[in-house]
């Protein structure tokens, strides 16, 4: 049985299956009407507020999805998709409120999706005539050109809200601090632990790791999606249990559990 798996990856596979089963179960349960109560996530609530504030002030909104050189074909694809979900939500709000939106994706392959998302947001808001092709700008898919472009765009447009979720690398603080410099409410998030401290320090609100991934579900208010977040929470409990149990077993001098995990 074990030889089916690549070396040292069997347990990880079963753990993945466990994650999927638990999440799916909780998702179904919520769909059937047992919707869990979700606590407020300040940074996510702030997205709507920030767009609202920008509208009141007659200012624009700038959205991006981070930067990574491999784009959506690489290991950060998940975070980029999470960023796309948030972008879709913001675009919809902007279309409804008549607020100018600028999206600056660093991934050329996503340009068609981004264009369509923004356009259909305006379409659904019945304001297709207000949609402008140039609300999607491309500043290149190279790190520093993109970062320089974001700095410049912020300075020129002086947006009221500056929102971005995705992978960020060395440019994270440049992006965050530039937003603060022009007085935009800056809400940025990433899953990369090395960059999160910069966002916590320099942004008005920071989305930390899992909050980025949960954003689409949270903002959609769709019961099934919120159910999936509940599944995620139960998995945290399972993880905690494994850690505590593992520590006890290891302390007693047994390697059973760690051998199992290394299987």
């Amino acid at each position, binding site marked *: 049985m074990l030889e089916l798996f690549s070396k040292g*990856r069997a*347990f990880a596979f079963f753990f*993945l299956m466990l994650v999927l089963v638990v999440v799916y179960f909780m998702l179904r349960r919520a769909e059937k009407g047992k919707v869990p109560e979700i606590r407020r996530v300040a940074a996510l609530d702030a997205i709507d507020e920030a767009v609202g504030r920008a509208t009141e002030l007659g200012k624009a909104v700038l959205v991006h999805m981070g930067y990574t050189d*491999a784009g959506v074909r690489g290991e950060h694809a998940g975070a980029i998709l999470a960023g796309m979900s948030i972008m879709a939500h913001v675009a919809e709000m902007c279309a409804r409120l008549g607020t100018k939106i600028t999206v600056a994706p660093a991934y050329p392959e996503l340009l068609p999706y981004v264009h369509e998302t923004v356009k259909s947001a305006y379409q659904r808001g019945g304001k297709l005539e207000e949609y402008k092709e140039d609300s999607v700008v491309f*500043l*290149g898919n190279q790190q520093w050109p993109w970062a*320089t472009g974001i700095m*410049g765009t912020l300075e020129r447009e002086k947006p009221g809200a500056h929102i971005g979720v995705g992978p960020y690398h060395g440019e994270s603080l440049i992006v965050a601090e530039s937003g603060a410099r022009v007085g935009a409410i800056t809400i940025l998030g990433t899953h990369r632990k090395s960059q999160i401290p910069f966002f916590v320090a320099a942004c008005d609100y920071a989305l930390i790791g899992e909050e980025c991934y949960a954003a689409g579900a949270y903002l959609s208010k769709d019961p099934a999606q919120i159910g999936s977040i*509940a599944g995620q929470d139960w998995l945290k409990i399972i993880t905690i249990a494994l850690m505590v149990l*593992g520590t006890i077993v290891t302390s007693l001098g047994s390697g059973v559990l760690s051998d199992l995990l290394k299987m």
Partner: protein
Amino acid sequence: MQQEESRVVSLDPAIWAAALMTIGIYSLGFKYNRFYKFCEFTLVGLGAGYAAVLAWDNIQRIGIRNIQTGKAYYIIPMVLGLMLYARYQPKLQWLSRYPLAMIVGIGTGIAVRGTVQADLVSQILGTMLPLFGSKDPLTYLNNLLVLILTVTGLVFFIFTIPTQRVKGGALMSRIGRLGLMIGMGALFAETVAGRYSFLVERVGFLLIQWLGLR
């Protein structure tokens, strides 16, 4: 930064170009201005041009060369790549979604598969450290602290289970949050020194190689 003997301003146009561009970017720190805008537009233009050069290189190296060496099926990704441009033809727009859907699937797959082993299993393993034994007692205290802060940190992030209503839940969540604050402060400060060294390099370049001040 080089120990150049001559104490005069450089006459090398390359150094001048590099120095002026550096100053242009730094000027943003003081005020947004047209010189910065010029530098920004130059960089964005060159960046896009460079991306195209790299892309062309990949098309040659992966696409054309593979086809030439007998892997004729590399026609398929080439056609898929061209399908992206269907987006400019309103009636065929849907075609451009297929290659995209494929890359998104591949990327998400790569993201998910790597995360289970590296971020879940090995992190759980990393927490499973003995709490007593024959080593320095401080080691065990630290092991315990890591365990406590990890557990409480995870509790802090729970979204749907009302931890506040469970006995001790509120306290755990509070400890977790404080632990996170320590980590954030430390991680931020940790990178400061690293970031400053790049500034030292550039300032050194301006003062020594360009102005010849040492």
